[in-house]
């Protein structure tokens, strides 16, 4: 049964005259992977800090794991795990020593520490690495140690701050599989990120900009609601020449941009007509090209577009 684990109602945080978080409301339920996507200064970290009970809101309130962040911030902390891309691990200690240290901080008893360490090491695929010094482990494994430390006390809610940026894709896959298992077993997961790959792992997303949530929903829903126009991709061996040629007739398109070895066009007429037009323009200058194909907008296309629309309104 899904129940609401986090319920934020009109959270506001002001620093002097600056409003960092501007009346943000959302609900997250058990086992959900919920992502905050936004630029630096969009209000992601401030929101997370309030949810963790380490920053008091100027107004509004949130219930986190059954406690109000205004009235019982201390009770919230025990239910939370936090992992950042900048691992806060002791590099000269072993995996086991790091785990024992964090378990101690979270107040686990000696017996529990042993038991939990065994479970966690298994769960995060660190069996066999217990006595390795963390400093000399590869990035992908360090990241798993950081995750293990963040969940040693079985938190109800896990916060991940750009957890996998720059990690080898195979190790990254394993990381997300562990996160998925945690989510299935009922841990609620919050992610703050810039990284489009991480965004796509979320069940639901909140796009934050200038202290507000400007869009919320599943990746698919947000994509479908934002992009109604197709993107046409024209490949050319001499892409600079092709771009310059098409750019000269830019008034005939809604948008034109160069992307590596291809040109992207958002048509203002229908796709077939625009295709003919592109063909005529490039052929008249003897530029070799491959017929335009339709491509799917990426989550980044969607985000950039939403921010532009928001700023123009």
């Amino acid at each position, binding site marked *: 049964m899904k129940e609401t684990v986090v319920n934020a109602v009109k959270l506001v945080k002001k620093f002097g005259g600056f409003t960092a978080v501007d009346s943000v409301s959302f609900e997250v339920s058990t086992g959900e992977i919920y992502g905050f996507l936004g630029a630096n200064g969009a209000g992601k970290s401030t929101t997370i800090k309030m949810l963790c009970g380490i920053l008091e809101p100027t107004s509004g309130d949130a219930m986190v794991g059954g406690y109000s962040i205004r009235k019982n911030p201390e009770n919230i902390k025990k239910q939370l795990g936090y992992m950042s891309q900048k691992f806060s691990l002791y590099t000269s200690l072993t995996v086991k020593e790091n785990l024992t240290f964090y378990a101690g901080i979270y107040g686990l008893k000696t017996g529990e520490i042993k038991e939990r360490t065994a479970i966690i090491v298994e769960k995060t695929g660190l069996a066999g690495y217990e006595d390795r010094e963390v400093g000399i482990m590869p990035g992908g494994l360090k990241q798993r140690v950081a995750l293990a430390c963040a969940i040693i006390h079985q938190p109800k809610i896990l916060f991940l701050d750009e957890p996998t940026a720059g990690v080898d*894709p195979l190790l990254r896959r394993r990381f997300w599989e562990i996160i998925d298992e945690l989510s299935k077993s009922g841990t609620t997961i919050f992610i703050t990120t810039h990284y489009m790959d991480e965004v796509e792992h979320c069940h639901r997303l909140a796009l934050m900009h200038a202290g507000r949530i400007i869009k919320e929903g599943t990746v698919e829903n947000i994509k479908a609601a934002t992009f109604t126009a197709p993107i046409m991709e024209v490949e050319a061996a001499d892409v600079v020449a092709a771009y310059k040629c098409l750019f000269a007739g830019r008034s005939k398109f809604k948008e034109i941009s160069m992307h*590596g070895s291809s040109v992207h066009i958002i048509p203002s007429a229908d796709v077939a007509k625009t295709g003919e037009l592109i063909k005529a323009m490039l052929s008249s200058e003897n530029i070799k090209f491959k017929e335009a194909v339709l491509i799917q907008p990426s989550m980044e296309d969607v985000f950039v577009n939403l921010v532009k629309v928001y700023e123009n309104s």
Partner: protein
Amino acid sequence: MKNVVEVKNLKKYFYDVHAIDGLSFEVREGEIFGFIGPDGAGKTTALRVISGIMLPTSGEVKVLGYNIPEEAEAIKEHIGYMSQKFNLYTDLTVEENINFFADVFLIEKQVLSQRLEKLLKMTRLAGFEKRLAGNLSGGMKQKLSLICTLIHRPQLLILDEPTTGVDPVSRREFWEILQEIVLEGVTIIISTPYMDEAEWCGRIGLMFRGRIISSDTPQKMKQGSNRVVADVFPITGKTEDLSAGLHSAQEPDFGGIFSKLRGITDIQLYGRKYHVVLENEAALEELKDKMNGIAQVNQISASIEDIFVDKIRKL
């Protein structure tokens, strides 16, 4: 097209760590060549050797016709190198930083003001000249670094992870600026850990453990892959867990229904969606058949990451 950079069997060892282990590639005039790979793949080391600021252990490196490291001094006025770490003076203003770099490259005042006007316009930093560099946002700092790297009009621009940690809007803007720079005939070599940025490059080299494991235009690389890719969306209420115990990393075991299917080479779970890479069309048909009534299967094109994973699994 002429080659601006030619590298043959380059090696760089730090004691027993083989940071670069037999790297060969060319960069053509006027293109954006992207080194795409995870942390520790050797991207930064490769760029440092090409820039002439780090000695290689062995191998041949030619940049703009000069032999590196022997003639490294000669390339310095023709290249612009932007390191991964922000290395401008945070307690100087935007203008003061730019003037400093212009002085280092002995650029005359009049020439500087002409170039600067254009660069400030292109990077949309006009109006921020008097702001302390330390008070700029992450994206703006990167653009200021870019101006300082471009002020002496280099033929070759070498950028080490300029978009890492930069937010999506600034990241997009930065890439758009690079496209403008290329239109003026400058060659760019750039590194990034973000696989999706491959699309902005003319050609890419996929880097892994000190080597380029594949190199081509992103489109050709995708077309050349014979893998078939599909997104699988479970139908709500039918089944919550198609892949109990999905375990794809080292020894693939895809679990659940997927373990009964042949021809799957990779699965990644994105939220509720399974991103499935298959060997061929027949495997896709079998997948569609098995998922009938349980999940919706949509064929999509392979991403650069799909191709990267496919290649590193075969190593």
